[in-house]
């Protein structure tokens, strides 16, 4: 059965696109057919993070408006043959996304894929609402920081009221993905702890992604972190998160970097 997953947050810059790419790739690694869909019309970036920016011909809006077929707009990933990207338009404005058009495209995507992962734009405007509209499951990406937690709370309220599932009176499945987490700073009382965020937002935890260089390295080279640096702490955290999404029961840990003795001694940087 096909699942539509929205990756959302309210606040910008918390890691929605990074997480969409990493989790989409992680799901595809187990052989499932996955489409990652960029809803950030006018500010597309999922293509860049996935390393597909030079292969964009048609985009989501072309398909929504019937100017291109879905198959023409989907870009197949070069590394995984079951992973596809549907880019957003870079030029047109958000009003070009019509509700009926998006509904039709989502139905068609459901027919071809096991997972349709929708990367929401920041904010609570039209694009964000349309990205979550058809979702069966939501990932709320949150940084351990006050403004991000507040915006996540707002988005959780919208997931429970503005989605098709919510309107039908069904339960909207929501998961918290805590990103850019620094266990040492949390331990010193300088950053909200996992439990603090969980207590405030009260949705189940999908994963804890530690702050790490590997994330920027991955986006620099245009490859999901779960494919390029699979042994890094964030990659392992995303891989576990994807398995939890598939229903596996995996103990929750804060992954840490596997560092050698010398790098532990000399490699420490100022926070």
């Amino acid at each position: 059965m096909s699942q539509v997953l929205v990756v959302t947050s309210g606040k910008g810059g918390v890691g929605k696109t990074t997480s969409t790419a990493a989790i989409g790739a992680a799901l595809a690694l187990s052989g499932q057919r996955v489409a990652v869909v960029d809803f950030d019309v006018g500010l597309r970036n999922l293509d860049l993070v996935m390393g597909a920016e030079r292969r964009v011909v048609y985009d989501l809006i072309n398909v929504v408006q019937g100017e291109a077929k879905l198959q023409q707009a989907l870009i197949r990933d070069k590394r995984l043959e079951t992973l596809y990207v549907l880019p957003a338009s870079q030029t047109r404005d958000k009003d070009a996304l019509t509700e009926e058009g998006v509904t039709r495209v989502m139905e068609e995507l459901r027919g071809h894929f096991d997972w349709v992962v929708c990367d929401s734009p920041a904010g609570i405007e039209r694009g964000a609402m349309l990205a979550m509209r058809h979702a069966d499951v939501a990932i709320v990406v949150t940084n351990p920081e006050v403004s991000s937690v507040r915006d996540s709370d707002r988005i959780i309220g919208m997931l429970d009221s503005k989605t098709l599932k919510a309107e039908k009176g069904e339960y909207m499945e929501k998961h918290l993905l805590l990103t850019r987490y620094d266990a040492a700073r949390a331990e010193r009382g300088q950053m909200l702890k996992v439990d603090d965020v969980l207590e405030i937002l009260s949705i189940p935890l999908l994963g804890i992604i530690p702050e790490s260089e590997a994330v920027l390295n991955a986006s620099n080279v245009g490859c999901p972190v779960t494919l390029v640096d699979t042994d890094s702490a964030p990659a392992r955290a995303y891989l576990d998160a994807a398995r939890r999404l598939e229903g596996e029961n995996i103990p929750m840990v804060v992954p840490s970097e596997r560092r050698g003795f010398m790098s532990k001694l000399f490699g420490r940087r100022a926070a």
Partner: protein
Amino acid sequence: MTIFNFFKPTRSAPVARDRLQILLQHERVSAGASDLIAKLREEILGVIARHVDIPADKVQVKMQRGDAVSTLEVEIELPNPVRRRAEAAA
């Protein structure tokens, strides 16, 4: 600023947690209320519009939150002369 501050880092996270808990408690209530008001307004307008021609902006619904009770204020402005709808009159 003394030298002791260096050894005792500021524990700001508990402050963040408390501020968020207070703020979100408030925001969740008001978000729920604004949904309720929008719904009430829509339904009240629907009932009146079945019988009388009325512009959509002439129904105002306000909620005042008190400690013990809250009050709901509904203000409906009917245009003169009141024009009854045909099906209602029939």
